[in-house]
């Protein structure tokens, strides 16, 4: 459902100097408004939240509002290549809340197409080699057919490497499929989920699925052995021109990212500062972003995670706060905000 009544603030866009690394690629490509890219040391990153959303509602309208509210410049998208990267890590028709809902993907495609971009949906499922089955199990294949959308199987495409700009892990270079490298804009479209190793999986962690299985395996064990937080931060530091749209309508809590239980949240989140969006999602889940290892590595170089450095547009996160159940494991419990308090 669209949220015209939310009146997203149209404050002058800007960016912290340190976040230039993350959003510099977007600005250089003219995809976010120029004033945003010029930088400021004093003003926060915008994150758009919309509650009360349903898969049957006007998701496209809400996403359009969110993208405009977070300073995406639609005029610059005409003729550009946009890659939508949903989360289809291990789709199962028995666990539909594991994967990005087809309605959100199709709605995002509608918005970007409406702005004159050419849209491809691409994914490299992390746990299954048969991508065709992943598309069937998730319902995404049928939705893409109905919407006349092309799909890029990122697991098997030809690859090229980029120098690892994060240098948190020992990896010297990171291999990406050509569809990812050739895109003018990559839209990370995660499902809002807990993660049984790193606490939360959202826009940043979802980019594991932008890397090719044919290089990294199924699962992408090369990344695991080099440190999950470190490689998440490295991928995000290396891949330019990424924004995120989060499917938080039906989420996963508990034993995510595969076997957790469904938690309805009715939420959509949008932002060009991916760590800022992830940090906001963590706060809504009752987790402390500064205790999430990859967010700690990402900030402030790749984006903001301090609440005071993030400007909420649309709904504020405090009104949406609803702690997610996490497994009773020490490495996860320590991520919780103390006594269920809001994490500011």
């Amino acid at each position: 459902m669209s949220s015209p009544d939310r009146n997203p603030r149209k404050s002058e866009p800007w960016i912290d100097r340190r976040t230039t690394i993350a959003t510099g690629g977007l600005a250089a490509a003219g995809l976010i408004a120029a004033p945003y890219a010029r930088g400021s040391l004093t003003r926060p990153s915008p994150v758009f939240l919309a509650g009360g959303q349903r898969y049957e509602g006007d998701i496209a309208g809400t996403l359009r509002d969110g993208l405009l509210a977070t300073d995406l410049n639609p005029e610059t998208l005409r003729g550009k290549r946009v890659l939508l990267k949903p989360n289809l890590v291990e789709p199962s028709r028995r666990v539909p809340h594991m994967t990005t809902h087809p309605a959100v993907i199709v709605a995002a495609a509608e918005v970007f197409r409406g702005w004159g971009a050419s849209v491809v949906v691409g994914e490299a499922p992390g746990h299954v080699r048969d991508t065709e089955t992943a598309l069937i199990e998730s319902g995404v294949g049928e939705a893409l057919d109905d919407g006349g959308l092309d799909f890029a199987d990122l697991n098997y495409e030809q690859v090229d490497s980029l120098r690892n700009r994060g240098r948190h892990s020992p990896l010297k270079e990171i291999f990406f499929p050509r569809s990812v490298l050739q895109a003018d804009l990559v839209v990370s479209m995660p499902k809002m989920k807990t993660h049984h190793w790193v606490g939360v999986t959202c826009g940043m962690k979802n980019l594991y699925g932008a890397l090719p299985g044919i290089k990294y395996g199924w699962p992408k064990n090369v990344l695991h052995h080099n440190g999950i937080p470190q490689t998440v931060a490295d991928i995000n530091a290396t891949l330019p021109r990424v924004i995120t749209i989060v499917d938080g309508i039906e989420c996963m809590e508990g034993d995510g990212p595969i076997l957790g239980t469904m938690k309805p949240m009715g939420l959509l989140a949008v932002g060009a500062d991916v760590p800022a969006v992830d940090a906001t999602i963590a706060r809504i889940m009752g987790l402390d972003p500064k205790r999430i290892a990859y967010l700690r590595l990402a900030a402030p170089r790749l984006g903001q995670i301090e609440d005071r450095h993030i400007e909420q547009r649309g709904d504020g996160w405090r009104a949406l706060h609803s702690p997610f159940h996490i497994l009773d494991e020490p490495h996860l419990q320590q991520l919780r905000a103390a006594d269920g308090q809001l994490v500011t």
Partner: protein
Amino acid sequence: MATTEATVQERRHAAARGQESPGGPQRSTATEPGLAARLAAITPGGYRAGAPPASEPTAWAVLALLGAGDWMAARRGCDWLAETQAGDGAVGVRRRQPAPAWPTALALLAWEAYHRATGENRYHPRIEHALAWTLKTRGRTVERKPQIGHDTTLVGWSWANNTHSWLEPTSLFVKALTANGLGAHARTAEATRLLIDRLLPGGGANYGNTRVLQQYLLPHVQPTGLVMWALADQEVEDPRIEASLAYLAREIEQPLGSASIAYALIGLAAHGRLPKSAATLTAAALARRATVGSTYKLALLNLARQQAQNA
């Protein structure tokens, strides 16, 4: 494990004399000329229409073409694999992508099947070199932890260098070693134990995790089919094998991708459990848009149909 070249060769030749190849179909199949010709026209080939050749699709195509009796096209695929083999004996995923090299297992199966089908031992040095690489390549082990259900100390084969052993590459290398006369080798035996260890209690397998943080994971058709195919050659008994075959028989009637259908049928056929719906399922998969022009999918479905016709 020290295995001399001579021993490898001796065992392989013994296998060639006395055993039916698990790697390539030996019986004369009721071939489908149109289907085989379509495959021959795109061999060597890639994962999807128009994609550059890759080792895995090309090796599967060789096996399917040999089953269809098209030795010339099969030889073209074998030659491509031979030219892709690196100096250390490994065959990378693509000619310009020498790592990772898990398709070495499939190249071994293709070259061995060509030898068996034609009597031409033209790839003998290639096979010996690839076997030596295979036997010195080991999946990474880690200490056992209570959070992880499987035995992390067992050695199989990994997707990428210096990472943990997973089910699909381990299945392919077990199959390749067995086809090349090394079914009794210690590495094959340990890897076979790994395959059994990674089966889920209720049947089926996924990429290779069983229980993580107290919860059993979901099975998937493709790895289950491959594991069943590999285990069919081994003298092992475990109730999870029957449960896995039952899982495949159930799941193959559900909507699936072409590759999963093919792997399920290949796995079921190896245990004499091909469903009556096999021909119908493969025919429907062959008609899909995603199959057209894909050497990978066309080869797998060709093989699955050959299994159905031979049953």
